[in-house]
Every structure is written in structure tokens, then in C-alpha cells.
């Protein structure tokens, strides 16, 4: 029964991600993207990766999407200012994407990995297990990522600040 939950949620994520790229209004795109990320959170819960589910919920649906919505509303964009590509480019883009998916699916079929996904260790994705991993072998990358976030913060402030001297 619950394998059907996976297929249902997978269908929803494909539909919502299609809506993201085909919605005319950028605000609608962001809202569909939030729904897509919500379906991804459900996927993480189904894989019993509970830590990642919570982090995905907070970081993507909370922080990143608020940032996107905030910038969209700051720039005051709507359907009228939306730039459109010529239909030719669109068709060529879709054909290129279809070629990509055919290639990917074909190569995965050749590899034929169809063993069922079995969760051997129930505590695999829990905070306890991941914390031991994160503060053990991955301590240096963890500390470096704090440096990355600091650099990104400084960079974002510096980029979006008005240049008072030249103006």
C-alpha cells in the first residue's frame, strides 16, 4: 500500500515542477516551487531521513523561498514585464531536454539497478547518527561551510549595497 504513496508523491512532484517552469507569472512559479519542495520533504520522510526532512522544510521552504518571494516582490515583476522567448527557442529547449531524458533513462536501463530499496538500519537518517558522522569524519568540511556562509553573507551585503561614492 505504501509503495503507492511513493508513486503518488512522485507524480505530484513531477506535476508541480512542470508547473514551476511553465507558469507565466513568476510569483506562481515560486508558489509551485514551494509545493515541489514540500513533496520532496515527504520523499525524505518516506526514506526515513528525518533530519534531512526537517532541514529541507526549514531551509528550503522557510528561508530560500522567502528570499525568492521577497526579491520578486521587491522588483515588482508581473505577467506584463515577463520576458518571453521566441517559440522556436522554446521548442528547441524542450527537444534538447527530451534528448537528455532519453539518454539518461537509456543508460540507467542498461545499468539495470532494480534491487528494491531496503532500509537496513532504522536509525540511519536520525539526528544522532548524522551528528556522529558530521562531527567525526566530516568535521573539517563542516567548519569550512561556516566560512562559506560568512563569505556569502558579506558578499551579498557588499553586492546589494548602493555605491555611495560614485553615485
Amino acid at each position: 500500500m505504501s509503495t503507492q504513496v511513493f508513486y503518488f508523491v512522485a507524480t505530484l512532484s513531477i506535476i508541480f515542477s512542470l508547473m514551476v517552469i511553465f507558469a507565466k507569472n513568476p510569483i506562481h512559479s515560486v508558489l509551485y516551487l514551494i509545493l515541489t519542495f514540500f513533496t520532496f520533504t515527504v520523499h525524505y520522510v518516506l526514506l526515513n531521513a528525518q533530519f534531512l526532512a526537517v532541514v529541507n522544510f526549514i531551509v528550503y521552504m522557510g528561508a530560500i523561498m522567502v528570499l525568492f518571494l521577497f526579491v520578486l516582490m521587491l522588483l515588482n515583476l508581473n505577467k506584463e514585464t515577463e520576458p518571453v522567448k521566441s517559440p522556436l527557442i522554446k521548442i528547441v529547449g524542450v527537444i534538447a531536454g527530451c534528448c537528455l531524458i532519453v539518454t539518461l533513462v537509456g543508460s540507467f536501463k542498461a545499468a539495470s539497478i532494480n534491487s528494491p530499496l531496503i532500509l537496513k538500519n532504522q536509525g540511519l537518517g536520525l539526528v544522532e547518527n548524522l551528528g556522529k558522522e558530521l562531527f567525526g569524519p566530516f568535521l573539517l568540511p563542516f567548519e569550512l561551510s561556516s566560512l562559506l556562509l560568512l563569505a556569502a553573507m558579506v558578499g551579498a551585503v557588499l553586492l546589494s549595497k548602493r555605491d555611495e561614492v560614485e553615485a
Partner: protein
Amino acid sequence: MENLTTQMAGVPLNHYIYLCAIIFTIGVIGVLTRRNAIVIFMSVELMLNAVNLLLTAFSVHSNDPSGQVFVFFIMALAAAEVAVGLAIIVMVYRNTKSIDINVLNRLKW
């Protein structure tokens, strides 16, 4: 919760691979067909998320927590990338009054 996840054992790994390939391709199509810089950014986020889900699926498959730690790092990287990228987009909008990426075609030379 445990009841649910033990029942999940039936989904084959390659169905996860197909799902992630499809969503990644949707992201690629979005980058190729849209001209709004923010929508292109969102397509990039879609691609990152497809890879995240696949890493998690493989981590569960091979019973190795390193994959989920990688996903955590990718999320931190995505947050940094979005902050800097949106700052650049705001600056482009301030200078050109548009976020059409074709305005930036002078960057090609």
C-alpha cells in the same frame, strides 16, 4: 513512522533514479526556455534538489550516512548560492531596470 518506512521497502531503486532524472531534466528545460533570471535560478534549485533526493536514496540503499551528510552540505551551499545570486539579480535590476538575461549578452565578449 517505523511501520510506514518498513513498508516502503518495495520501491525499486531505479524508480528513484527515474524520478530524479525527470526532475533534473525539467530543471534543464527551465534553464533553456526561460528568460527571467529568477525563474532560471529556481530551475537550478530544482536540479540541486533532484540530486539531493538521489543522494539520500543511495545513502539508504547502501546503508551509509555519508550521503545524507553530503546532502546537508549541498543545502548549506544552496543557501549561500541563493543569497549571492539574488544580490546579483537585484543589482542587475537596479542597473538595467529588467531581469531579462538577454540584456546581459554583452557579458559574452
